[in-house]
């Protein structure tokens, strides 16, 4: 069970197929019990409300959320094929998010695209928009962040109804042809409160499940049953944003790779090329822009075509082209730094932690029991037993992926 099942949503009893059948026989309140039991195990990784004012609380919540997205050490799909669906129906014109829901979505997607390629250099992403009840592919699955952002920026207008079915059908069409080692995902940013579908959406959901496509939804207004069902059945995450910043957080939660789906988790080999950086001053015909470019760029080791950016797929021979740092960065998902544990500041009064007054990472002072001056949490690396501040914790786990304490241990 991945952390995705963490009951991020109060309507857990809506479960899937069978559970729902039984559910009908169950007394409604009794379902609450069933849930409560399941809850016990989940208190660890569920995120709380986001309205906390207390710094320490806030930091704890951030950590909890982060832990939820990481979960225990599990196999992760590091080669992902993700379609991001933007709902640009009539509802996206609402101005309860600034500048409008559509604007907020565009900003988030932009941030997401960058973060995504940063965290998943070997993965591919495509954009789909829904407008007037029709889903349209904006960009093909590819590895170039700038192309996606450009296409999105050029397509900002909204009207008509929304249709989830059309969107997932379209995405499925493209995703079902990708190689089996790829992890297939759809992330929907949904403004509307209903979906006007041409057929039975349950069929489409079943198809997605069959095709191992993980669908997640980030809602902008309220919880919608069908979105909940879609996410539950396909193993995705459903969340609803309260504010612009919350929206961004929720979207970015989809950037780290999700746990691998059991069936598709069989190890497989992927052929990759590590192109050479072209010498300055050489002139070559660029395969991605179809024009002559001067200097820079990379050369595909198989067909010698020139590409501008990495990572990408060679436009000529289709080889996956990455640089070795990319591969290395993907690695951290496989060998993550252990999660730091919070140390109760109270224990300190017993005189145990006198030595560790400063953060091992940044040498700033850590909160102590006596002084109220420094707010926040104190964290300990379970391997090297060094203490860190909150900021370093975030930096180590989200960017650095190495623990300075562990690295400096004498081997």
């Amino acid at each position: 069970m991945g952390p995705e099942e963490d009951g991020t949503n109060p309507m857990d009893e809506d479960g899937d197929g069978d559970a729902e059948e039984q559910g009908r026989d169950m007394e409604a309140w009794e379902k609450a019990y069933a849930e409560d039991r399941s809850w016990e195990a989940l208190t660890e990784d569920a995120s709380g409300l986001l309205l906390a004012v207390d710094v320490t609380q806030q930091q704890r919540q951030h950590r909890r959320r982060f832990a939820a997205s990481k979960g225990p050490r599990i196999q992760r799909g590091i080669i992902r094929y993700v379609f991001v669906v933007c709902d640009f129906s009539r509802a996206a014109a609402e101005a309860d998010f600034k500048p409008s829901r559509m604007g907020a979505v565009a900003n988030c997607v932009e941030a997401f695209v960058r973060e995504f390629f940063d965290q998943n250099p070997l993965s591919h992403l495509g954009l789909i928009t829904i407008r007037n009840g029709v889903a349209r592919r904006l960009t093909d699955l590819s590895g170039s962040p700038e192309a996606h952002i450009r296409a999105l920026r050029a397509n900002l207008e909204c009207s008509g109804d929304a249709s989830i079915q059309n969107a997932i059908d379209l995405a499925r069409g493209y995703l079902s042809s990708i190689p089996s080692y790829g992890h297939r995902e759809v992330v929907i940013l949904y403004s509307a409160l209903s979906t006007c579908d041409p057929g039975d959406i349950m069929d489409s959901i079943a198809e997605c499940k069959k095709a191992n496509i993980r669908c997640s939804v980030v809602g902008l207004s309220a919880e919608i049953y069908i979105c909940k069902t879609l996410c539950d059945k396909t193993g995705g995450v459903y969340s609803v944003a309260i504010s612009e910043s919350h929206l961004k957080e929720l979207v970015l939660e989809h950037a780290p790779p999700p746990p691998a789906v059991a069936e598709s988790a069989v190890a497989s080999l992927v052929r990759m090329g590590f192109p050479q950086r072209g010498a300055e001053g050489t002139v070559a015909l660029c395969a991605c822009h179809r024009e002559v470019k001067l200097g820079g760029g990379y050369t595909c080791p198989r067909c010698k075509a020139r590409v501008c950016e990495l990572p990408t797929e060679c436009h000529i021979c289709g080889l996956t082209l990455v640089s070795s740092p990319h591969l290395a960065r993907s690695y951290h998902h496989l060998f993550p730094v252990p999660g730091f544990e919070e140390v109760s500041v109270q224990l300190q009064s017993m005189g145990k932690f006198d030595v560790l007054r400063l953060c091992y990472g940044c040498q700033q002072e850590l909160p102590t029991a006596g002084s109220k001056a420094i707010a926040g949490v104190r964290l300990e690396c379970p391997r090297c037993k060094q203490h860190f501040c909150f900021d370093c914790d975030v930096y180590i786990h989200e960017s650095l992926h190495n623990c300075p304490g562990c690295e400096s241990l004498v081997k």
Partner: protein
Amino acid sequence: MKFKIEGLTVYFPYEFIYPEQYQYMVELKRALDAKGHCLLEMPTGTGKTITLLSLITSYQLANPVGKLVYCTRTVHEMEKVLDELRRLHAYQEKEIGKEAAKILALGLSSRKNMCVHPEISGEGSRESVDAGCRKLTASWVRIAAVDNPNIKTCDFFENYEKKGADALLPPGVYTLHDMRSFGREKGWCPYFLARHMIQFANVVVYNYQYLLDPKVSGIISREMEKECIVVFDEAHNIDNVCIEALSVNIRQQTLEGATRNLGKISQVIEKFKATDANRLREEYNRLVEGLAQRGNLPVADNWLANPVLPDDILREAVPGNIRRAEHFVAFLKRLVQYIKGRLLTEVVESEGPLSFLNSLNKECSIDQKALKFCYDRLQSLLTTLEITDTDEFLYIQSICDFATLVGTYQRGFAIIIEPYDDRMPNIPDPVLQLSCLDASLAIRPVFERFQSVVITSGTLSPIDLYPRLLNFNPVIFKSFTMTLTRDCLCPMILTRGSDQLPVSTKFDMRSDPGVVRNYGRLLLEMVAAVPDGVVCFFVSYSYMDGIINSWNEMGILQEVMQHKLVFIETQDVVETTLALDNYRRACDCGRGAVFFSVARGKVAEGIDFDRHYGRLVIMYGIPFQYTLSRILRARLEYLRETFQIKEGDFLTFDAVRQAAQCVGRVIRSKADYGMMIFADKRYNRHDKRSKLPGWIQTHLRDAHLNLSTDMSLHIAREFLRKMAQPYDKKGQGTNATLLSQADLEKMEQMENMQA
């Protein structure tokens, strides 16, 4: 889990219990200890049923009390209760062993729900199944069948009868479904078996009528012991059930049918006179001695008891003038003729039973005494004449029903004759109503006969009114609120539209186009902001039709349909069921839908709009009863004179409980969430608001009063976003909403320490 309440060990089949469930048990136990009646209000979604069952069965295990008689309103609720009980029983068996936990619990319903005969059970209505069964099981039919193999009988009944006293149901918990399977397997009739087994059962679950309607309870519930614990669940409308049990309506077609029935009866009498005059003579002799002792009648012949309450039934000989069959028929003909004449009136007439009897006596010399015996006399005659198709004789039964009631009761009843429905004065539709005005009449025998009667529901506010309406003294009456880990209820009172003009369904305002438009805008804004299902309740069918028409003309409905599909409740049950079905489907598939419904209608009473089927309910206006109704006015007058209940108080109480009932449809469990908009400026007044149940009032924050459409829209949006966030369902510290066995033990220790 297992815990103690004041020394009583309670078995509860779950690991956690809500604090209010625990409180409820404490109060209930005190009432049982005091051998008194009680009135308990606890919101739906808090597991009232299991709380009741768990405490009472535990109490039965520890104390020598009688059976638990659990009354529900619908078959569906009945099955739910029994399912719940089954789970509880399994847990008890686990805890104290099979032998100690042994119980017999069963549901009883009409033949329509229990019959397993391949043909009879397929009949459409309750009456036709009853009659179909009677045709196969009446004593004379069975006697005739002994000689003549062509006469059909029911094998299930025959097998059951053959077994005699050995036909027993082994201990266990039986839903109607289980009863049917058991009956099929054994080849015994489940209906008669259930009726028989009631006397041995520890828990009986059946419909309100089996206790409240003398016609049924006289047969089914006659032999229950005093120590029984009676529960009326979902009892917020119990006064109306009581009143209906003792009221009769007679229309034109009733009279025509009755005339036909009488013709048929005369024919049969003639036939018997020619072939078997002895029979009639025997009956005559029996009547001289007093009415047939019901207990001696073969079980299948005994199908409806006297409509008056057991204490009021006369145990004397039938008066001479109706003893002979043909005299009785002539007597009835005169009565029918008289009522026909009364229905010809062109003005509304309203009188008490006394004056009605007077004029009846004067004009057709029918006396009260004979009237009283009508019903029993008719049953005797139909049995003597070996008439089995009872469903065809419903009309004459209604007439006799009426005659007996009118002959027995002089107080607490009114007779009202209306030539047409006030709302449709052009269509003549004369009706004579014998209306019971006093709800306490029908329920009094229940209070007197049984040691403890528990009346409970999610809405019994104001709780002090029920003891007055039902005229009893509860030893305990209490209202519980719901403990919640988050504010999942969001009631709002909307008093004006976005243009700040007040909205109301008050008579002088309801057709004002401004109000209609503001109501429409409210819906429009809400369907655009609320996901999945939205339910609207209107005060009446005619109001709903009117406003939907206006919205259609204003183009509002078309705009609504851009966001959600629209479904409407009609007076046709099949149509409404279909509409509900499609409504649910639209909610399931994400299209979203609105359901327009009527307060006091079938939907408002029995259909749940929980989870995504109802994220918002809008109550348009206050569902006052139709105050021009003469029955209502007679009842108000009676309540004022007899119980000193003010008219306004009663009307408001009644309207607000209906409104609470409507909005309560959206919350069925604590994990659920939903909004409720009371759209009428009058709700803002204290006298209305204060009559809402406690669990709504506690969530009705000041910021949610006196809202305009745009304000409520803002609240709604925020609420929905907040509810979509993950939350900690268990609650923490003082906020705990779930107690474990350990928690309860700690509480008990603390109490002991204090004591």
